[in-house]
């Protein structure tokens, strides 16, 4: 059975989804999806162990060898991302039942879990697949279910946000499809590994150039990179809290994974960074994203909006790390992927708890919550500190590596700008802190109690992970470094 782990990783949640539809009873379905997600988590751990021990695993679906059939090719990078996704999903699901009972009508509960599992398996599928077209198909699975999940939000603006996301996401997917078509046209293969071997022969052609451009733009649409980020804040702000916690922690990470996979493994480092001025382009866009989004975050009244903008800013950090195109920079990006997943899921889950008690996440409603919901607010504070990058939290580790990478490249100015941007982060985190701890409670939120225990457990698991990985950096750094080194090893 151990040999089949790569496929089981995707198949288990995928097949569990229709089973959920058959089970129907919502509490049963919750338990079932939790178990399934837990199994996926265990599988991803053992996959990571196998890969760290013995290198890349290749699994041929249908028993056909690679360029003809579809294969799953799991190396360190995939395993790392798989671990992040399944871990976040499991922890978030712990809180799901309490939260959606409050936020969704009764008849939608089962469907919610079905969509959740579909989205999870779509993302796992994207990450583990070694075939471009298969990536596209699973991308659509995950994004279609994400649209539906976002539209489940109570506010009518959720519908509009979801529609915008649908339009942007579909344009992105179609761009990727065009890119795939052009690549296929030039090489005659769809397999990622095969593509990376055959592309250099035709790398000088204009077709490959525009294929590259289309794929990158398509991914950036999904990634919500700065000028293409318009869909993200609303989508995150109006989706049900659980969905926000899950998507914020995973969806953009998958897009980052795709970006890394395409630029480093498929097109190859030398091609990617010489044909387009990718380095400078991504650096500028990333920095702009950080500053614009952080500034926007300062002016938000809705805390979910605030953290959504902060997500865009964090994507900016990842992109800056990516643009250095050095091992350290890529390590920083991967670390930040990991760390950001931890912080954002903790933060959004804590917001979910606030939503559960108060029914709103307007900043003005946060007055005095520091005393009324001490554990939840403490979690938000620690998450916020982590966002800023205070030592002893995970945020510090990835920023440290990012700065190292920038200094290594001699980009002093950028490093200084990154430090400056942390100041902006301090401002917006401080706003929440100030309102929650230094203002008297509002009359209408007088009798608010601490969030239920089913919220506190997952939140504090994530917060503890935030601190743990901030102090003991061996595991995450080791894996991220190994992954980025292997990527640079692949690229000539």
């Amino acid at each position: 059975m151990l040999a089949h782990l790569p496929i089981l990783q995707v198949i288990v949640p995928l097949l569990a989804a229709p089973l959920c539809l058959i089970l129907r009873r919502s509490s049963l379905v919750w338990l079932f999806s939790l178990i399934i997600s837990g199994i996926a988590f265990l599988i991803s751990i053992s996959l990571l162990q196998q890969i760290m021990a013995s290198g890349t695993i290749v699994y041929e679906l249908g028993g056909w060898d690679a360029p003809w059939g579809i294969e799953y090719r799991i190396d360190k990078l995939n395993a790392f991302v798989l671990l992040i996704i399944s871990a976040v999903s499991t922890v978030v699901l712990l809180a799901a039942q309490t939260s959606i009972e409050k936020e969704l009508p009764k008849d939608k509960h089962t469907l919610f879990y079905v969509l959740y599992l579909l989205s999870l398996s779509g993302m796992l599928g994207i990450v583990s697949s070694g075939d471009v077209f298969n990536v596209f198909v699973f991308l659509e699975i995950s994004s279609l279910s994400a649209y539906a999940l976002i539209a489940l939000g109570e506010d009518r603006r959720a519908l509009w946000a979801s529609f915008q996301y649908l339009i942007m996401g579909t344009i992105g997917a179609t761009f990727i499809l065009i890119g795939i078509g052009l690549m296929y046209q030039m090489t005659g293969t769809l397999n990622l590994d095969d593509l990376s071997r055959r592309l250099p022969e035709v790398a000088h052609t204009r077709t490959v150039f525009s294929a590259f451009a289309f794929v990158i733009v398509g991914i950036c649409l999904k990634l919500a990179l700065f000028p293409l980020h318009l869909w993200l804040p609303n989508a995150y702000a109006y989706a049900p809290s659980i969905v926000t916690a899950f998507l914020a922690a995973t969806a953009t990470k998958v897009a980052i994974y795709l970006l890394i996979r395409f630029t480093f493994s498929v097109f190859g480092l030398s091609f990617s960074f010489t044909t387009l001025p990718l380095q400078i382009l991504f650096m500028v866009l990333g920095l702009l994203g950080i500053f614009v989004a952080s500034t926007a975050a300062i002016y938000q009244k809705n805390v979910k909006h605030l953290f959504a903008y902060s997500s865009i800013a964090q994507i900016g950090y990842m992109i800056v790390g990516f643009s250095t195109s050095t091992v350290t920079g890529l390590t920083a990006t991967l670390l930040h992927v990991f760390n950001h997943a931890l912080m954002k899921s903790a933060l959004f889950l804590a917001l979910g708890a606030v939503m559960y008690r108060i029914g709103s996440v307007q900043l003005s409603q946060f007055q005095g919550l520091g005393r009324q919901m001490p554990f939840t607010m403490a979690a938000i504070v620690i998450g916020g500190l982590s966002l800023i990058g205070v030592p002893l939290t995970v945020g510090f580790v990835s920023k440290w590596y990012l700065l190292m990478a920038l200094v290594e490249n001699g980009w002093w100015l950028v490093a200084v700008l990154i430090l400056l941007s942390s100041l902006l982060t301090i401002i917006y985190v401080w706003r929440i802190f100030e309102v929650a701890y230094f203002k008297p409670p509002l009359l209408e939120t007088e009798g608010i109690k601490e969030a239920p225990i089913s919220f506190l457990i997952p939140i504090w698991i994530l917060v503890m992970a935030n601190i743990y990985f901030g102090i003991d950096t061996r595991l995450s750094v080791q894996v991220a470094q190994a992954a980025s080194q292997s990527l640079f090893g692949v690229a000539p």
Partner: protein
Amino acid sequence: MGIAVAIVRMKDLVAVIMLAGIYGLLSASFFVAMDAVDVAFTEASVGAGISSLLMLVAITMTGRSEHPTRHKPVLALVVVVITGALLIYGTLDMPYFGSADAPIHGHVAPRYINDSMQEIGVPNIVTSVLASYRAFDTFGEVVVIFTAGIGVLTLLSVVRLPEDVTKSYSLNDSMYEQQLILRIVTKMLIPFILLFALYVQFHGEYGPGGGFQAGVIFAAAIILYAMVFGLRTSRRVINQPFIQLAAAMGVLFYGSIGLVSLLNGGNFLDYSVLNADPIAGQHLGILLIELGVGCTVASVMLIIFFNFAGRREVQQNRRDKETK
């Protein structure tokens, strides 16, 4: 192919949809001319049939005219021109249309064309690639359509009150009382359509067709019935929980065939181990997964259609009540 231009200018949404339907038909004929029979099959039933039908139903709920808003057409035009220029630039180095020595025809495809008969034993190469070489893509496709069904269900399903139903049908039926000819012809046609769907389902290995197309045709027959005889009568035959179950079963069926092959010692979706003779195993596998595909597709199409139409009905009732 200048239809698209007309679509841009047109304000009346119904006309736009008509034209989109023609566009679908046209592209389907183009696919036939390009030898892609299976694709033409699907595009005809989907692009020209189902999707324009869905759009129409949606329009009845959203209103048909478009406001002449002109926001930032210049910016949009710039973006479009840049993208288009990039694409044209990209095509410059492409192998010429129809040339047989393009890399696309050289690397992977020859094996499908030359060896699939020995390896799988199915004359329709598209079917063998779809259902065996790249079976996992098809599995993904089934899951995509399943996801769409669930998504539509979450968005549009309404809790139906029994009294509402009776009232709405009196309205619906009176509308179609007069269409006697239509009813008779429909009644005569539907068995043929269902039979044809089954033919497409099981003939997919030899000619164009397969599970997806059969599912769409099957669903189309029932949609036709629902349109002519009213939703309630068709719901009596096929009710919501049942089609949901069928959709889920289709996906599960497909997946479980993969699991069976996994338990029999092969990789996921490796049909050769289903039978002592690999080719017979492949046959069996393809037949079974096509069944799964057909089941899911038909039921998801029905889910989508019934939810749209049901939603519309509820709206109509509400409107009627308001006017009263």
